[in-house]
């Protein structure tokens, strides 16, 4: 099992890193030929940085759209953030103070994350408009995340695992020195689902995470009258006239 999971995590990491690098490169290389920020838009790059920060940190547009959806989404994402921060202790030695301090909040994070996910799933099933646009993969994605959350919380609350050994496993992975993973079914489920999440990331709607930074309606400066904006292919077209 240890070898299997070691191979799985190397593979999942490679897929995640190279897959994301491919998509980010694709987004970077694809030009945005026209100025299309959703107005009113910031007039400076600093302004755009703030707009993106509000979008990523506060879900500004979602807040304008639907308050319940915003609450569910914030609960899930903020919860996930705390959970991820809490889990950093498995990958660093010595553990940074800030990660140590965040540990208790990670538990609340886990609860918020699960609450948000369940609410999002129910919304998807109950609201007719959202049900209409739902593909099986949308449900599976939520179930996958719920599975990760539930198995994680189970290990925290009920079926404890040997966290020292888990940490040794991951620190070992990072140094190419494989250490034994505790023989614990819930842990296997948890880690297996996490690896699956990493693998589907670059092929799925999880691309919204890098995508938002490349969205021309959000990342463009409102300066069309002052600065001529010309994509390479548009310049070629112009030269050919």
């Amino acid at each position, binding site marked *: 099992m240890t070898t299997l999971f070691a191979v799985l995590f190397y593979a999942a990491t490679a897929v995640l890193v190279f897959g994301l690098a491919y998509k980010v490169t694709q987004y970077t290389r694809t030009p945005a030929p026209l100025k299309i920020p959703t107005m009113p838009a910031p007039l400076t790059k600093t302004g755009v940085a703030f707009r993106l920060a509000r979008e990523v940190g506060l879900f500004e547009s979602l807040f304008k759209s639907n308050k319940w959806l915003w609450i569910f989404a914030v609960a899930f994402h903020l919860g996930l953030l705390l959970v991820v921060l809490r889990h950093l202790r498995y990958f660093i030695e010595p553990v940074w103070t800030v990660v140590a301090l965040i540990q208790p909040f990670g538990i609340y994070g886990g609860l918020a994350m699960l609450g948000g996910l369940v609410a999002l799933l129910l919304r998807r099933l109950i609201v007719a408009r959202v049900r209409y646009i739902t*593909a099986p993969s949308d449900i599976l994605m939520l179930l996958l995340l719920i599975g990760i959350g539930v198995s994680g919380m189970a290990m925290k609350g009920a079926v404890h695992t040997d966290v020292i050994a888990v940490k040794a496993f991951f620190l070992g992975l990072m140094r190419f020195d494989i250490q034994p993973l505790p023989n614990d079914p819930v842990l296997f489920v948890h880690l297996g689902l996490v690896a699956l999440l990493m693998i589907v990331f670059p092929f799925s709607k999880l691309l919204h995470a890098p995508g*938002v930074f490349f969205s021309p309606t959000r990342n463009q400066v409102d300066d069309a009258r002052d600065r001529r904006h010309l*994509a390479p292919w548009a310049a070629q077209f112009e030269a050919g006239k």
Partner: protein
Amino acid sequence: MADFEVPVLNDIPKTPELAPGASAHLKPFVAAPAHQEALGFPGELVEDWHDKAIAKMGDLLGKYRSLQVYMDACVKCGACTDKCHYFLGTGDPKNMPVARQDLFRSVYRKHFTLGGKLFPQLVGAKDLTREMLDDWYSYFHQCSQCRRCSVFCPYGIDTAEVSMAAREVMDHIGLGQKYCNEIIGKVHKIGNNLGLPEPALADTLEGLAEDVKDETGHDVLFPLDVEGADVLLVTPSADFFAEPHVDGLIGYAKVFHQAGVSWTLSSKASEAANFAMFIGSYENMVRVARRIREAAIELKVKRIIFGECGHAWRVAYSFLNTLAGPWDFLDPRYPRPQHILEFTHDLIKRGGIKLDKSGNQGMVLTFHDSCNVARASRMGDMPGGQFGIPREVIAACVPKFVDMHPDTIGEKTFCCGGGGGLLTDDLMEIRVKGAQPRAEALKAVVEQEGVTHMAAICAICKSQFTKVLPKYGFEMDMIVSVHQLVSKAILLGNND
């Protein structure tokens, strides 16, 4: 045109129940071969349309970051599902922005993603069948590219970008829309959407000058092709003859007259509109935009000012520098280009023109923010100037101004229902239904605040409302141009 039921206006706006297929039958007339070929597109649906369409999709995905990112980033959260006026007016789920995008996205997934190739059913990947193509033709012509959905999307996904791409793909396989493509052909050939040739235009302008002289006693000029004028005014051709547009044109002329600024119209660029944007054709957009550059150079003007037109102002403000710039031969002290409202607003603030509200006595105004001006452009120096400047000008001209519900104005404004190349009689049903959210907001201020008129700054909005609002029981002449109000309030002659 089939008969249809005009929606009932609710006092409190509500989101409709889903009515699958409710507007599947709504599709515009297909462009004739002559309309298609004039724009460089195949005359009719080509034999290998499927492969050609997929190839064109690939081409566009490589050219437009917006399209590539928007195809990947949607999480189907549903934030946009109740935001489109066409969905609110029809209940057809394919008019929900995400579902409209999904018509394109499902084909994208099928042909351009690993998940779609391996597990099509799981991720909702579908091929471009004839049925799908029919859905494209129907529903991408039920999007007015107003960008309201993009305001609410957490990733800024703009359905306008997708519908433009879909129309570009359809044009390239020979399935174009008659209304847009015929009009773009007229602009290429004659210079304006109406196909109004130079002599007719000259005649019309002469008549307007006489009318104003009769009414006011002042020699207000309507110059055409005057070389060496300071300002080239580019305005939608509807301003040359239709009510209430023409009253706006008279307003611009009076403002120029009173400001003592020499100006001219151009018979070559006798149209501000650029319908090539609606069909997502960069090449045609450039061709239409370059007329304006050529006219400005030939007439040796120092400034370019655009008249009241929504998407034209989007193209002018956001795209003109890209499409036909650089504009370094124009006077850098003024915005290049400038909006007529920026010009008039500045004059009002500086006391360059004097206004008397009694010219619009008894009027209570509200203002319809045109979608393209609101969400795709700006006026003035500050973000949001496109909301403040028109309101300040209106308020300076009329006794009372009232805004509609905050969820229906500003960046959240509703499209009039006729934008994006839908202003054609063969789409009347969707136009009427798409106007429902605006009509509801208007009804509220009419009943509660005594609003008598609604001002707009877009030729499409004005034409659409004039035609459609009567179906909801409003008078057609309650729609006015902003410069029509200026025209009635401005004091001509020596005011010192």
